[in-house]
């Protein structure tokens, strides 16, 4: 990709005759073109966009408020309540919509924060090596010593007793390690390349080399892993809330809604399957998008699977 950029730069400056090269295509456009051809990824994008739009817009038009508990208890699904009502008489559709908002918001924050920490730590360790590397890998060991869900459960209890933002930050604090590991390996390989040496010779500092030279070359894996981290975060947050140690009322999430209603799965399956299907659709579609992005960013990948 570096060679391609150099060639197109040379072409822009007129050092190469335009007809000597094929139609210049930026990497971004190349990736986009490949991604658009990936059928499953495109369908997933459509599904995800639809879910996000519904979760954001539908509550404004929906006749029932998520707080309104004046409806009949355990109403069966009807035109008025497509997913029935809960025990206390809240409309399930508005619950699911609100839960989706929170679940997505938490997952995106987890992914963004974890990616930021992971990329910074990983590229520092991979580029500087030596003492920085070994102390950062000790830090990684420390964070890996307890499973994410257990650490998050304890910390969510300590700070803020289950408000959604606390859950998001706590999950992110224990989600950056895999990203740091991948980034470190990649930064290590990139650091050996000539363009980094050239930048160093030109007097670029550590920050400049990392953010202007290393990170742009890792954009593919960062994007893919950040996307997959969103899917992971949706599931982990749901699991944490489901065991009762994540988001607490008045905040909510899909996991929390399932916790509150799954006892009804036998008699009123809609109360469980409503939030469950939305949760699975979110995590499946994000995983498919991540897969599509991986294929799109992979320059070796020619054959496009469905």
């Amino acid at each position: 990709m570096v060679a391609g950029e150099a060639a197109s730069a040379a072409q822009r400056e007129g050092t190469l005759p335009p007809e000597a090269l094929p139609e210049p295509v930026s990497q971004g456009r190349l990736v986009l073109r490949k991604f658009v051809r990936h059928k499953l990824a495109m369908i997933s994008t459509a599904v995800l966009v639809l879910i996000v739009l519904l979760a954001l817009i539908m509550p404004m038009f929906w006749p029932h408020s998520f707080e309104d508990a004046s409806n009949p208890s355990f109403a069966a699904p009807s035109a008025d309540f497509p997913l029935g009502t809960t025990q206390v008489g809240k409309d399930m559709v508005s619950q699911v919509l609100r839960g989706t908002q929170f679940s997505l918001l938490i997952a995106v924050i987890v992914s963004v924060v974890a990616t930021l920490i992971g990329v910074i730590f990983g590229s520092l360790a991979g580029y500087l090596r030596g003492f920085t590397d070994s102390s950062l890998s000790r830090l990684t060991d420390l964070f890996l010593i307890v499973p994410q869900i257990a650490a998050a459960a304890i910390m969510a209890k300590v700070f803020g007793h289950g408000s959604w933002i606390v859950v998001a930050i706590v999950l992110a604090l224990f989600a950056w390690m895999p990203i740091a590991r991948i980034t470190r390996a990649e930064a290590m390989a990139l650091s050996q390349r000539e363009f980094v040496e050239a930048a160093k010779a030109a007097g670029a500092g550590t920050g400049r080399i990392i953010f202007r030279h290393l990170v742009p070359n890792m954009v593919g894996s960062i994007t893919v892993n950040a996307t997959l981290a969103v899917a992971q975060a949706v599931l982990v947050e749901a699991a944490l809330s489901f065991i009762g140690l994540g988001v607490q009322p008045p905040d909510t999430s899909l996991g929390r809604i399932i916790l509150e209603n799954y006892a009804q799965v036998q008699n009123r399956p809609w109360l469980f399957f409503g939030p469950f299907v939305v949760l699975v659709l979110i995590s499946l579609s994000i995983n498919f998008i991540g897969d599509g992005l991986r294929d799109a960013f992979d320059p070796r990948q020619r054959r496009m699977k469905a």
Partner: protein
Amino acid sequence: MNLVIYALRRLAISIPVLLVGTFVVFMMVAAAGDPLAELKGRPNINPAAIAETERQLDLDKPIIVRYFLWLWKFLHGDWGVSVAQGNAMAPVFPKVMDAFEVTVRLVVGAEILALVIGVAVGVLAAVKQYSIWDYVATTLAFFLFSMPIFCVAIVLKTYAIEINGWVRDLGLTDWLGNPWLRTTSPENLSFDGVGDFFAKYSGAFLLPTLSIMAISFAAYSRFQRASMLETLNMDYVRTARAKGLSSSRVVFRHAFRNALIPVATLFSVNFGQVLTGAIITETVFNWHGMGTLLVDSVNHLDPSTLMGWLVVVAVMVVVANLVADLLYGIMDPRIRVG
């Protein structure tokens, strides 16, 4: 010998990590709130009794002192007592060990099954790449991987009730027991005879095993497929084929053995993921293992139990990672460990 020294050095390095980890968690638990709040909230409780309990639990001392007191006692085999209500100051050590035993019994079988089936499916999918088998296996793995594990458990639990109904209708209850599939913890399973043993254990373990297996199977089969594909494209495999070896000999004697290396290490590194699965599965099926112990002790802010839990889990993680590294060195002689 080198390996032994390497293993010892790795363990030595992880001791400070363990110490810092326990210290941080101890501070956090202490900051989370008063473990005796429940006790104090009771009506008609004698203040002198509370003060006495506080003294017994060292809660009257500063946090830092408490940590080192805890550490000192812990290293001398005294894991402290639980402060959770209804536990009557039960000692932590047997509690954690019982829970650990339950989880190990649940997880080990599930993981081995997931590994064997996952590897088999992964190899099949790679050898018959782009066949119907490959698509079915890949799709299944993808779905299971995107599935929240607790929902798998809930769905299994729901359908178990129907399956138990079929078992009854088919008149199999004499062999399989009534109900056959259990959706709660199998405390004290007693059995007479091999058939009864099989029926009771399969009924008790089938559902939680399946739900723990689901996600592990997905990871192993995808991993094995990728690694098998990579190996099958290697030069030495082509050489083996060119020599005229039979297809099965090439696949199993040449490719498969090397393709196992990455999966074997994933098996050990995956430990945290497995534990997460166990925590959730135990909650749904009401098993009294490490998962339910964690949930209870976090809810009750029970410091000693939580610390005991943490140390057991952390040591397991350290050992699992070490085993992964050692396995890597043993299985792949090109990689020198140490």
